[in-house]
């Protein structure tokens, strides 16, 4: 085996190196983040004022659908897989991932999946227009012809996720350096291990549900059609059986990242390590028994409604434990606020706000008023943007000096943070208000009473988008800068990654490191 990377494009096409593949994943997700972001800005531009100005309702629905799909499956999930590829082997003292060749495939099928997905925009009848939750029969009997391509794309990215998850589990369970016991692993590794199990459990369910759609559309079955003895509500049950764990797939690794960053900049060990592990595991378990809270208005018998309401409320307990642990980690530390810490602290605050609205949504009778309004949109964006996006951003600022050996520009990083923070709150906070005031989600035009807050949201969205351009610029400048980072980068951080040089050698830990108590 060669000691350095191959040269030219071949390095990237055929690489089996976990660092190269991590880099590929991260750049791919960044690209998807911008594409999904452009879709979001089309939505916000149309919603700037009442009336139809920029796009027609058909295209608007395609935008909401594609924005959701691209952000969930193209931006957030691959970004986390990229971080896992880079960091998991290093954090557990392994030389590489357990299955390097599969690692290469699991990345390289993704661009195909998303080429198919995005190309549907140019097909006759347009791209999928039935929302990222693609409820039948709107997505079967009434779908545009491009739905078949959508199904193929979902299958491919599902396969990619499952391969990635298998690889991560195999790596964590088999390649830990001697002395790296399970309860010594960094929390990022723990949360990813649990996430990977969730992926293996539910991505096949997603594959199953789109397969049933495919059969209903092309082979005359009627899983979801009442005419043939099926039931459109079955679709929602199966979808959310996948969908709710999926939501946690997008947040658990974020918990791991924040649990790495906050101790570093508090100069204090993480509070309650083992309770963090147990809390993560219980959140993962609960995610399998709460799916019907997405369907409170569908017509569920009373006892079912009560069961799902109680189970959902229960999630607040382990989530609360996590938040309290982070706050206590900061308490009586010696805090400094470099860019990664700013993003991590914003994560804790804003994610908690998203958690509060989540608790409100769990209350079934109140949900009759919140369901399918902008209150829900506000809720899940408060959980996902500060949750997933901010934690990924924090991770990039935190580890970029390690990956590249170059230090980013702190002023620019902080500017990015404040612009993103203000943009995010301007965009999503008013959505709570319009939702409570009665604005349904997924509408291209709205009544006049919602106009003012929507205008603010739209302005915030463009500000948030601009902040991300600054992020891209900062990264490119860092990669080309001559400002070298030290091996430790931060002040006395904890973890094996900081024992390696910056940047780490192409093949690290070819002999296992010694783990101190």
């Amino acid at each position, binding site marked *: 085996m060669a000691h350095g990377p191959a040269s030219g494009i071949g390095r990237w096409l055929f690489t089996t190196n976990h660092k190269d593949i991590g880099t590929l994943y991260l750049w791919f997700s960044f690209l998807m983040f911008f594409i999904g972001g452009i879709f979001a800005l089309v939505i916000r531009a149309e919603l700037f004022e009442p009336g139809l100005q920029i796009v027609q309702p058909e295209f608007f629905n395609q935008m909401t659908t594609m924005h959701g799909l691209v952000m969930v499956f193209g931006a957030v999930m691959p970004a986390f897989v990229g971080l896992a590829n880079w960091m998991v082997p290093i954090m557990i003292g392994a030389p590489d991932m*357990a*299955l390097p060749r599969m690692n290469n495939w699991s990345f390289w099928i993704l661009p195909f999946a998303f080429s198919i997905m995005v190309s549907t925009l140019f097909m006759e009848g347009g791209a999928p227009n039935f929302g990222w939750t693609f409820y039948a029969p709107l997505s079967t009997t009434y779908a545009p012809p491009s739905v078949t391509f959508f199904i193929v794309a979902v299958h491919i990215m599902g396969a990619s996720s*499952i391969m990635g*998850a*298998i690889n991560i*589990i*195999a790596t964590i*369970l*088999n*390649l830990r350096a001697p002395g790296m016991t399970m309860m010594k692993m960094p929390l990022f590794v723990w949360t990813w291990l649990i996430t990977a199990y969730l992926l*293996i*459990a*539910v*991505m*096949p*369910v997603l*594959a*199953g*549900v789109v*397969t*049933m759609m495919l059969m209903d559309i092309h082979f*005359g079955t*009627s*899983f979801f059609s*009442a*005419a*043939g*003895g*099926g*039931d459109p*509500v*079955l679709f929602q*049950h*199966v979808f959310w*059986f*996948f969908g709710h764990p999926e939501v946690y797939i997008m947040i658990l690794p974020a918990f791991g990242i924040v649990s790495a960053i906050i101790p570093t900049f508090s100069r204090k060990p993480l509070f309650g390590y083992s309770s963090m592990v147990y809390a993560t595991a219980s959140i993962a378990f609960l995610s399998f028994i709460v799916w019907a809270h997405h369907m409170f208005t569908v*017509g*569920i*018998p*009373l*006892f*079912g409604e009560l069961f799902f309401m109680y189970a959902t409320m229960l999630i607040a307990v382990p989530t609360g434990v996590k938040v309290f642990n982070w706050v206590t980690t900061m308490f009586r530390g010696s805090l400094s606020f470099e860019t990664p810490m700013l993003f991590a602290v914003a994560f804790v605050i804003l994610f908690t706000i998203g958690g509060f609205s989540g608790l409100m949504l769990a209350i079934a009778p109140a949900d009759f008023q919140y369901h399918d309004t902008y209150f829900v949109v506000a809720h899940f964006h408060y959980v996902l943007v500060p949750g997933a996006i901010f934690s990924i951003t924090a991770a990039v600022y935190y580890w970029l000096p390690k990956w590249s050996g170059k230090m980013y520009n702190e002023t620019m990083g902080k500017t990015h943070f404040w612009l993103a923070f203000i943009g995010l709150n301007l965009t999503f906070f008013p959505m709570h208000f319009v939702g409570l005031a009665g604005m349904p989600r997924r509408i291209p035009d709205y009544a006049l009473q919602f106009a003012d807050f929507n205008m603010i949201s739209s302005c915030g969205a463009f500000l948030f988008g601009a902040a991300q351009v600054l992020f891209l610029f900062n990264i490119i400048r860092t990669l080309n800068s001559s400002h070298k980072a030290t091996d430790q980068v931060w002040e006395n951080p904890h973890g094996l990654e900081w024992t390696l040089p910056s940047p780490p050698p192409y093949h690290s830990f070819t002999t296992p490191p010694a783990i101190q108590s």
Partner: protein
Amino acid sequence: MSNANKNVNRLVIKLLITGVGMFAFALFVLPPMYEVFCDITGLNGKTGERYEQSTQTVNEQRTIRVQFIGKNNEAMPWQFRPNQTEIKVHPGQEVQVSYYARNPTENYMVAQAVPSLVPYDATDYFHKTECFCFSNQPLEGGHEAELVLRFIVDKDLPEHIHTLTLAYTMFDITEYSDAAKAAAR
């Protein structure tokens, strides 16, 4: 190293089997499980199959109001309506009602009626001994039919229920029915 490789391989195979198993679970287990779940809870008001037990003691003390609704799913051109919109029955008593259907088109068509009953907790207590919804309904163009429904409201119907509403939705399944394909041939 080879030992570690063997461990990895065994784990990967296990994980792959789990993945395939979950796929099969979603495709082959979840839908029938949902059916069972619906049967038990009455979710979506699906009423049961043909009721075989025929005699029940009639409770003359109690009167239940049963409402009938007939609807067409979209693009279904049939005229379809209940012949009586509301009747009063005693629990345990077997009653016969009927719906009127007419195919106003020039073509042979096949329809399927899908029942739905509210409140959901009554579905276990609504027994159909004869129903046009048990099978497909073929009708020649221009013809009409009397569609018969015979049912018993169980004498154990929970006390708090006084009204049952039964809706049938007519779906056009001409394309899917074998009879139609045979006729086309």
